[in-house]
């Protein structure tokens, strides 16, 4: 139980591969049931939901600037079209007489500026989100809102994790609510973690996505464990997940039943563990099991 007694900070990410398996509810409940000092990060910057159940008080906010974007000075442009021909992202559009940059497509590489014979292109800073630093009952929370439709989510994830670590280095636990998927934001989330809790559900897509997630996380040095949410909706499906985990050498540290009280709590903006219910009891057992599993393995190192 090193986690409860202090020492070096432990970094735990709650991820899932498939979306909607219950990452955020479980992360919020862990924030509630764990007694150590902690800082939380919501790395699902596309659709951040932890704030809906942790009731954060925002104490600081800052702009997030992603990659620069190209801008064409129409007065200097001779409409030669070299930029449009060289752009690999189809970001430069023309109506035949003038050229403009479509900022949704521009990835900020700077090739157009380099090639422009009339020096008509400059690179401009682009704000594509906002970062919030907040207080909750359980510790500080760093969260963000990516401008809907914007790129650079992986970059934003890296920044908010860094802010959380730098400002809360004395905490025992860094608790991260991860994004769905296995791409850029997920890889940015799990990089540098000590432990990864994968939340899955008993469906063929749940298992398929878990397998891909595990293969992405495996090369990392983090220890991995699995929790099966809504396990009773498909008992044979839950058994298949157990078999997969056993073969992969990954511990299953909990199973949570389908329980309507979970969404009742969310509707009130509360945490599931603030009430007594089968799901709440299962999450208490889950946390005990996480402590004993990772306590000996990752958390002891």
């Amino acid at each position: 139980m090193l986690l409860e007694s202090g020492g070096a900070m432990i970094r735990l990410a709650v991820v899932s591969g498939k979306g909607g398996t219950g990452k955020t509810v479980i992360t919020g409940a862990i924030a509630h049931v764990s007694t150590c000092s902690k800082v939380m990060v919501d790395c699902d910057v596309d659709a951040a939901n932890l704030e809906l159940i942790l009731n954060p008080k925002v104490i600081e906010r800052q702009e997030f600037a992603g990659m620069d974007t190209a801008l064409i000075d129409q007065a200097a442009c001779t409409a030669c079209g070299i930029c449009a021909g060289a752009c690999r992202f189809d970001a430069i559009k023309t109506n035949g007489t003038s050229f403009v940059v479509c900022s949704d497509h521009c990835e900020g590489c700077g090739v157009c500026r380099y090639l422009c014979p009339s020096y008509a292109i400059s690179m401009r800073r682009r704000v594509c989100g906002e970062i919030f630093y907040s207080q909750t009952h359980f510790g500080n929370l760093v969260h963000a809102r990516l401008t809907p439709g914007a790129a650079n989510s992986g970059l934003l994830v890296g920044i908010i994790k860094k802010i959380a670590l730098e400002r809360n280095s004395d905490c025992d636990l860094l608790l991260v609510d991860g994004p769905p998927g296995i791409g850029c934001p997920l890889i940015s989330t799990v990089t540098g973690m000590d432990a990864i809790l994968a939340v899955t559900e008993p469906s063929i897509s749940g298992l398929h996505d878990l397998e891909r997630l595990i293969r992405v996380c495996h090369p990392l040095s983090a220890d991995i464990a699995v929790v099966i949410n809504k396990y009773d909706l498909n008992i044979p499906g839950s058994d298949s997940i157990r078999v997969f985990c056993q073969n992969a050498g990954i511990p299953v540290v909990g199973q949570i039943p389908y329980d309507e009280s979970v969404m009742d709590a969310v509707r009130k903006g509360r945490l599931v563990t603030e009430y007594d219910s089968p799901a709440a009891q299962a999450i208490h057992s889950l946390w005990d099991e996480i402590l004993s599993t990772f306590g000996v393995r990752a958390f002891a190192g």
Partner: protein
Amino acid sequence: MPSKHFSRVNSGNSDLPFSYVPETSDNIDDTLIMKVTVASGKGGTGKSMVAANLAWALSETSPVTLVDCDVEEPNLHLFFPQDPIEREEVTVPVPSIDLDRCTFCGDCAGFCAYGALLVTKDRVLFFPDLCHSCGGCSLICLAGAIKETQRSIGTLTLRHISDRLHIVTGTLQEGDVLATKVIREAKRIAERPGWIVYDASPGTSCPVVETLQGSDLCLLVTESTPFGLHDLELAYSVTSYMGIPSGVVINLSDGRDKETRAFCEEKEIPVFATIPFDRWIAHVQGVGDLISRRDSFWKDRFIALGMACCSRVEEL
């Protein structure tokens, strides 16, 4: 069924690498297409379930191509037992450095906006995961030491489900990050007459925007929870910013949809369908089947959903 208001297929499809052409009956104008993206913001609301059932039901009478654009976690193929009939790699150009020519000047690393190159006094390190394949390094190298080679980042597969239903799946290679490139390629090879149903990834960032590009309509699948509503609002802001009309499907409904409906009413987004939370539906999904395949009641409901999409596009 598709009307003259729907966007026309670009001519010259014959040079596409995938060779199938869906069978079309005489009464369907095979130059017309209807493109619908199924998106959600929040994960797990049932996008793939809606996309797969919609495609299955519509393929009863029309040619349909179902495109899995959730390339990080593609799932649509799990609902259909057929093996792929064609497979193709998605590659991107990346730099290859000729150390005999390299002068270690460091200009390439200085130019790279993504930090994918690092030049020391006698070495050049390349980090392929950070490279966006812009081609800048090979352009800028005065010594001519940088050529481009192709690197695989994912695969495209084609499944033939019936004469009227095909599935294109884009799969991002595990550990790779260029999801948008795989999505773009999957959409390119899926460009066919008839219905095209795109299943988007969760979220609101670049992969969703890439999927939505060129769609006639977006079906926003939500659930009656505060998380579902919050993320519906975000997803709607993407579709409205892109100027794509939308309609809502409330899935996993427990009847407490008042706030979701109030939001839709305020934004004038039609609610096309409400699907209850039901253990039978969860079970059918869980074993990889489709409710529209199991039960004609649901097939009719999904055909009606398709018709609602058509009417909405015509009306606008």
